[in-house]
């Protein structure tokens, strides 16, 4: 099968999964203790019986289950994610307003994590048993065991409170009214701590995997052949070992992209970063379930898109992968 067919198949699969997640959402709301109408109203100050009745009608809660599901799926398909009675806006508009901030944060963290993780992993693998390797291995173990919200708080404690180098909260300086380059610089400064914090946990993961994978590939026969041919060691590492050692790293990176987005809930909460993670936290505080489920649906869709992209990269990097499989 050609690559086009492969993409189509993966897209079809992605749509099925999104549909599945919409159904999970639907079931969750109905399994929740209490009437779905009151749940959707955010257990709001909507104790008003007339209002709840109106909601029941609006969501078709008086109709049979399968009709309710059909209505819900149709709503999701048209990006109608419901209404946040707490914030008095549609869930979709709330999410799409905040989405760019989250994409900036997670995107930066993703790039940093991959770049730094692979670099450190290669460094450690090249110096097995020496102090560089030990330091990198111990640090990777430590960060792998540290909850990211705590890493973030410690970052604030050190770089914002003690050293006063970086801002601790938000994504722009309040009231500064900056434009153009100064604005970008301001956002960049606010981005450093949260993005690094989010990245560090994954740097640890990628460094460990890269190191293990490099060592494994280095022991294979084709590397011995390359050595026997007298190729320079640097070239063997780059062109022969690294290229082949990257496959497990790419797989993992694709799987973990979703977790990265999940982690942004914690990071955005710690740093008051105005993205969808922070939005989810506010929704939690206010028991605003429509909004929470909207964020859940959207993050799931983002994960699926990330996975799709990973599959494509994978098939490009490794021509052995049968795209028809």
């Amino acid at each position, binding site marked *: 099968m050609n690559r086009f067919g492969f993409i189509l198949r993966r897209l079809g699969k992605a749509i099925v999964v999104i549909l599945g997640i919409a159904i999970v959402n639907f079931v969750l709301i109905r399994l929740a203790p209490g009437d779905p109408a009151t749940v959707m109203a955010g257990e709001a100050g909507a104790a008003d019986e007339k209002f709840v009745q109106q909601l029941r009608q609006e969501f078709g809660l008086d109709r049979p289950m399968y009709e309710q599901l059909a209505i819900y799926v149709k709503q999701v398909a048209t990006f109608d994610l419901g209404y946040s009675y707490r914030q008095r806006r549609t869930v979709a508009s709330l999410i799409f307003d905040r989405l760019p901030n989250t994409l900036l944060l997670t995107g930066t963290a993703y790039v940093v994590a991959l770049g730094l993780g692979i670099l450190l992993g290669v460094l450690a693998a090249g110096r097995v048993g020496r102090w560089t390797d030990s330091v990198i291995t111990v640090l990777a173990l430590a960060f792998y065991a540290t*909850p990211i919200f*705590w890493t973030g708080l410690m970052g604030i404690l050190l770089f914002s409170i003690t050293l006063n180098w970086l801002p601790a909260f938000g994504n722009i300086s309040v009231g500064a009214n900056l434009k153009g380059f100064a604005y970008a610089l301001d956002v960049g400064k606010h981005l450093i701590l949260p993005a690094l914090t989010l990245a560090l946990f994954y740097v640890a993961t990628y460094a460990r995997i890269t190191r293990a994978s490099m060592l494994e590939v280095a022991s294979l026969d084709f590397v011995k052949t390359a050595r026997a041919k007298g190729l320079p060691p640097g070239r063997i590492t780059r062109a022969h070992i690294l290229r082949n050692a990257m496959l497990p790293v790419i797989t993992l990176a694709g799987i973990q992209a979703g977790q990265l987005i999940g982690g942004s809930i914690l990071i955005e909460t710690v740093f008051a970063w105005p993205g969808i993670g922070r939005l989810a936290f506010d929704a939690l505080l206010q028991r605003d379930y429509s909004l929470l489920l909207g964020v859940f649906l959207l993050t799931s869709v983002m*994960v699926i898109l990330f996975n799709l992209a990973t599959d494509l990269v994978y098939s490009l990097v490794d021509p052995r992968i049968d795209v028809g499989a």
Partner: protein
Amino acid sequence: MKDFWKRYSRNRGAVVGLAVLALVIVASLAAPLLFPASPWDMVGTPFQHPFQGDQLLGTDTLGRDVLAGIVYGARVSLMVGVVSTLAAVLLGIALGAVAGYHGGVVDDAVMRFTEFFQTIPSFVFAVVLVAIFRPSIQSIVVAIAIVSWPPVARLVRGEFLSLRSREFVQAAVVTGQSTGTIILREILPNALSPIIVLASLMVATAILLESSISFLGLGDPNLMSWGYMIGASRTVIRTAWWMSVFPGLAIMVTVLAINLIGEGLNDALNPRLARRGRA
């Protein structure tokens, strides 16, 4: 057993991890003896610095003993870590065994189901589950178990696929043993080693998940936990660093210890694979 310990103790980190975990377990068991008062009780003046007053690690914003909170919090962390992992492992074994043993359509169906759960972002899903079913220790355990079982199912399925065609399994089939007996008595014991290693690492992940859920304010309102302590004091971090620093260290040390134990178990149980990827 002697062999097992010999291989395990060759990994020094794993021995240290075991010692640290033993300490955490003892402290959590002895909590009522060490701190007879409830960790929620006010025992001193609020905002007391550590290493100065009667409370070794200071007090929090409401005058509660930080060290007492950490010791009691260990109970919640360990309990949630172990129970949710057990639940996830049982679920994963059940599904993975059925898929791997039967193969074919059953395998396909179970694996699609598993993949679906792996696609859902686990942390967000766990948070949504706890929020909707009201925060409590039970809902947290169930939520963590629900998002953690897929890797177990995949692992068990793989083991079963390769084991079911072995001669000893076919011998059991020929002698007319029931499917249940074959799965439980013949195949499962041979697949246990990698499951144990994976489970040990899952306990560590579960503890991190629990602390993150509690940090967001979704912990059991009746139980002191490390994540809650950090979440409750993060707004005063400018003036009272110790309230967030010590519980965080507790999480890090415990999770690190369990990860090290996991590596040691891997060395001891899978000697063939143990040194792969290492010098």
